[in-house]
């Protein structure tokens, strides 16, 4: 909504010493955010009133004239112009050099410069209304007509800025309609003025609400009082289509609408003033001289003002005459029966329609009109009084000869005032400080509440315009008091800290330790991918569609499946990064989903299965080291992150792994995850071109964090240990686990150093280098003991795994 300061002035006198920016700030802090402050005069810079002193022929062009013009500067200026109505002695609109005008009212503004036209100097430009943003207010009769203030009877001074002349030197506060959703009373300038009156404690110019009396009734029937609680019809004769007066066109323009003709403009003006939609029907088109508010019959049709032909259903409320629908109730008028050029008598509708029906119907026909926007926020029935009164006084002003010949107020349901008690004690506690009773009463009264104080309790009646859903509980009243005082004026209240118990969340801590371990110890980069994954990657990871949860309206048709695993996301990230990197490690921690039943909060709510997964991948050129990198990350995870040890087994082959290189990750006897090289199929199907990759996936819900550090201190060895390296040759079929298993009881420490195959190593064999430490618990080893122990180790290796020394 555009709030025009000139419009507001009709209902409140704002102090002149407050800047518009301050006004915008105060409204933002207390009521609704002002997104922009527009000074409408800005675009009229250097566009002024000039007086034509003399009109001369142009020596080189028949269609052009030379106008000697006084623009309020030291000398008379020569301006070349092709206008059809150039008259010496008349005041016209002149754009001086620097002004920005729009050629023929179309396209981007162009900056005026001093120039020559067909050889004659021209200082600036004498303009038509459309060229200087006045096309809606001064409608030109022909294309070449220039704005002639004298002819139009508009008072002005030579040199005066045209924005000022036309009342377009306004300031507009722009508010997003969305932020007004909860405040139907602010959808008109009258309501906004009331807020300012409360904010600045100023008088508010209340409007009269009395209705016509003693007139014949016009026949109105409301069949659906739930959908239409009030309908007033006023018959006004002896009117005709004409332009609205200047002041009204200007205000309508400033507030962001276009003037059309006086009959329509009156209804739009009332809409913008008090937020009450109205509609005028050509009374000769209302057959049977009666109005019926009813539901449409299935199959009934209505042609709207915007030429849209509607097929109505029985959920759509329509305003009808004795025979046909005339209007889609509260949304848009019908083309055939609204104001026409030939109209001489109107039926003015000022009615209230309830929000839910309006919302359904606007959504059904996709008709978001100014009227519908207001009705769907909930309008009180009492507002119609303001609407009727204002409209009729405008009719009398603009059509002094009009006759109000009939009036009916069909009013089956009244908006009840919300009745709410609020205690001083509640306010004191929740506001955190004591606000005086006089202050509370003053604020509430200014906002329209009726307040009756009795022994610590304020018995409040909310105004009807706040009683359509906005205000219903005492917290709402507290909010009104707090915001009008201004949140910034309340003393800050420090928060106490309770030491009743410590915050001890080992699971939460574990999740963080895991991430920090992978990032800082293992050198993995954390990534985020979407929970919906492209089918290609889901399928590449060997997941079938039926194992996934799907979205009803996915971001794209290929992204309808929610991930049951993080591996598809790893694949997509590898594809994305292999263009720039050939060696990288990534990880992601996120929830995955699969069909199943899960009740996180209550038994009546059943969600699909959620699992908290952690997955990582290492991508590079050479497969085996990638596998060991991932294996190392998992092997060391438990000791660095302080949870129960992980081991490996090979029980259940996951879908995404390589034929040769995979293991299940075990915690005790439970499988908690997998590691492996990504299968050749997975890499191919995902579109990984050059790299190999290994990955792990871990269900972090299945690992148990230690409540604290658990490893016990071990005494340092009292006697020195002897460290030995050993290179052995074994058959390819011999595993490290066999080697280690055969001697680990004989040594204090055993380490794998490297595996080697190459020229010096016979086919079918591999060389293993290992390192171990030996020592006595009660003495320093003698060289004899050392020799004996080493010999024994070599013997065992020979016997158990057929090792030869290298």
């Amino acid at each position, binding site marked *: 909504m555009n709030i025009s300061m000139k419009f507001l002035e009709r209902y409140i006198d704002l102090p002149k010493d407050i800047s518009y920016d301050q006004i915008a700030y105060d409204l933002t802090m207390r009521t609704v955010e002002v997104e922009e402050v527009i000074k409408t005069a800005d675009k009229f810079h250097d566009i002024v009133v000039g007086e034509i002193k003399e009109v001369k022929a142009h020596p080189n062009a028949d269609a052009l004239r030379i106008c000697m013009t006084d623009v309020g500067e030291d000398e008379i200026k020569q301006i070349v112009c092709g206008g059809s109505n150039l008259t010496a002695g008349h005041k016209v609109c002149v754009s001086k050099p620097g002004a920005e005008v729009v050629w023929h009212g179309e396209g981007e503004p162009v900056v005026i410069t001093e120039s020559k036209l067909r050889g004659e100097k021209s200082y600036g430009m004498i303009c038509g209304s459309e060229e200087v943003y006045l096309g809606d207010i001064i409608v030109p009769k022909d294309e070449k007509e220039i704005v002639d203030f004298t002819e139009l009877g508009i008072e002005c001074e030579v040199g005066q800025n045209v924005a000022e002349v036309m009342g377009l030197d306004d300031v507009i506060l722009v508010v997003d309609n969305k932020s007004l959703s909860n405040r139907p009373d602010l959808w008109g300038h009258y309501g906004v003025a009331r807020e300012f009156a409360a904010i600045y404690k100023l008088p508010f110019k209340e409007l009269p609400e009395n209705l016509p009396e003693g007139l014949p009734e016009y026949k109105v029937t409301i069949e659906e009082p739930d959908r239409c609680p009030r309908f007033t019809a006023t018959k006004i004769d002896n009117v005709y289509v004409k332009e609205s007066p200047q002041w009204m066109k200007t205000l309508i323009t400033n507030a962001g609408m276009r003037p059309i003709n006086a009959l329509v403009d009156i209804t739009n003006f009332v809409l913008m003033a008090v937020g009450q939609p109205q509609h005028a029907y050509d009374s000769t088109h209302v057959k049977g001289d009666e109005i019926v508010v009813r539901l449409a019959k299935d199959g009934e049709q209505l042609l709207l003002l915007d030429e849209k032909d509607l097929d109505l259903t029985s959920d759509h409320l329509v305003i009808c005459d004795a025979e046909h629908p005339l209007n889609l109730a509260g949304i848009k008028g019908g083309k055939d029966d609204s104001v026409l050029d030939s109209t001489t008598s109107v039926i003015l509708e000022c009615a209230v329609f309830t929000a839910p029906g309006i919302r359904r119907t606007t959504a059904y026909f996709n008709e978001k009109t100014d009227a519908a926007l207001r009705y769907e926020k909930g309008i009180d029935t009492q507002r119609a009084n303001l609407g009727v009164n204002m409209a009729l006084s405008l009719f009398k002003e603009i059509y002094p000869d009009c006759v109000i010949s009939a009036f009916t107020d069909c009013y089956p349901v009244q908006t009840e005032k919300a009745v709410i008690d609020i205690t001083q004690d509640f306010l004191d506690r929740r506001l*955190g400080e004591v606000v005086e009773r006089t202050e509370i009463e003053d604020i509430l009264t200014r906002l329209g509440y009726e307040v009756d104080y009795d022994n610590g309790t304020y018995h409040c009646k909310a105004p009807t315009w706040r009683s359509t859903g906005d205000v219903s509980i005492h917290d709402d009243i507290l909010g009104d008091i707090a915001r009008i005082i201004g949140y910034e004026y309340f003393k800050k209240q420090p928060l106490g800290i309770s030491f009743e118990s410590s915050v001890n969340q080992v699971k939460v801590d574990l999740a963080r330790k895991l991430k920090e371990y992978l990032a800082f110890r293992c050198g993995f980069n954390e990534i985020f991918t979407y929970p919906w994954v492209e089918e290609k990657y889901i399928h590449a990871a060997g997941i079938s569609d039926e194992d996934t949860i799907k979205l009803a309206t996915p971001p794209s048709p290929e992204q309808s499946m929610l991930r049951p695993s993080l591996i598809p996301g790893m694949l997509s*990230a590898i594809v994305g990064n292999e263009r720039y990197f050939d060696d990288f490690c990534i990880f992601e921690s996120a929830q995955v989903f699969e069909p199943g039943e899960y009740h996180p909060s209550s038994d009546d709510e059943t969600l699909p299965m959620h699992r908290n997964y952690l997955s990582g991948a290492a991508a590079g050129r050479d497969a085996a080291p990638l596998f060991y990198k991932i294996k190392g990350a998992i092997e060391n995870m438990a000791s660095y992150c302080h949870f129960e040890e992980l081991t490996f087994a090979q029980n259940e082959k996951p879908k995404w792994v390589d034929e040769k290189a995979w293991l299940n990750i075990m915690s005790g006897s439970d499988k908690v995850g997998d590691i492996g090289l990504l299968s050749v199929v997975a890499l191919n199907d995902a579109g990984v071109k050059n790299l190999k990759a290994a990955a792990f996936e871990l269900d972090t819900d299945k690992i148990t964090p230690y409540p604290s550090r658990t490893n016990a201190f071990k005494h340092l060895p009292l006697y020195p240990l002897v460290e030995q390296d050993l290179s052995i040759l074994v058959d390819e079929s011999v595993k490290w686990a066999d080697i280690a298993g055969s001697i680990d009881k004989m040594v204090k420490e055993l380490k794998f150093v490297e595996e080697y195959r190459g020229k010096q190593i016979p086919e079918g064999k591999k060389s293993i280098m290992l390192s171990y430490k030996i020592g006595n618990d009660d003495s320093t080893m003698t060289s004899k003991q050392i020799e004996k122990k080493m010999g024994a180790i070599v013997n065992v290796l020979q016997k158990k795994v057929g090792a030869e020394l290298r």
Partner: protein
Amino acid sequence: MLEKLEGIQSQGLESISSASDVDALEAVRKELTGKKSALQEVLKSLGGLDPDMRKSVGMKANEIKNLFSEKIQEREKELVAVASSVKGELDLTLPGTAVASGALHPITQMCYDLNDAFRSLGFEIYSEDDISSEKYAFDNLNFAADHPARASMDTYWLKGTEDKRGNDRLCLRPHLTGGSVRYLLQHGAPARFVYPGRVYRNETTDARHERAFFQYEALIVDKDISFSSGRVMIETILEKVFGRKVNVRMREGFFPFTEPGYEIDMECLLCGGKGCKACNQAGWIEVMPGGVIHPNVLRAANLDPDVWTGFYTNIGLDRLVMMRYGVDDVRLFHSADLRFLEQFK
């Protein structure tokens, strides 16, 4: 003989002072004081001298020996003081050895900073699941039955549930607030907790809009606390995150699950509140909505609104991280692009 000793002494001192490093000095030591040194030769030949001579030559030789070892020690100290472990040249401009290159996502880093700040104030950390139901995402939170956010244009409903209602209509959670009721049902009141997480909206994406983004919500439920405590909490948190005092303002705002509700703006850190492109010339940036928990939400959590009250604040993590680093496209957060992520080590 004494003359010879004079010669040994001066030559010896010369060699000591000209030794250029510790190794050279060691060689000099051997040469001057070793078994085959000239001095030793002289001492060996003492037996052949007359007693007087023997005495004076012996004394002199020992004097020289002591002098040598004293000077060698001195020289050694000098040499060690200027010695280096490096043989040859060392290029100090070569880059140092790389460290492990991993990093946490910048959103995670911000989240942990906030966690640390809230933990220090005694808050628990809670997380709700990504999939929720209409009951928890909307009904419990006082959203009107026909609120537009419930439409599939706004929320990602799960296939097969989209036409159902309440408990049976499931969605990717559109905000974190639903989790507050889950926590309160489980733990009761009083409570103070944060619940960070990712939320999902059916939106058209551009540099400022994402379908998946991160929020960080905090809730305090207690007796008789004022909304103005909320402002203290927020100022404390922002100061911790940005490392300096950040001015905030609280203004009127409206959300179904709060009454009253407010918007919290922080002074733009780029221009210091003067107005710049980043803050749309306003000087303020909307960082978080908040408000006093609506009585209907407390009721949904089985709490009596006459006894309990509390306030929410919800921080848009993406926007905060964008402010922290000057990131200009929110979509980068989900890009998994390491060229971007590696900048946040």
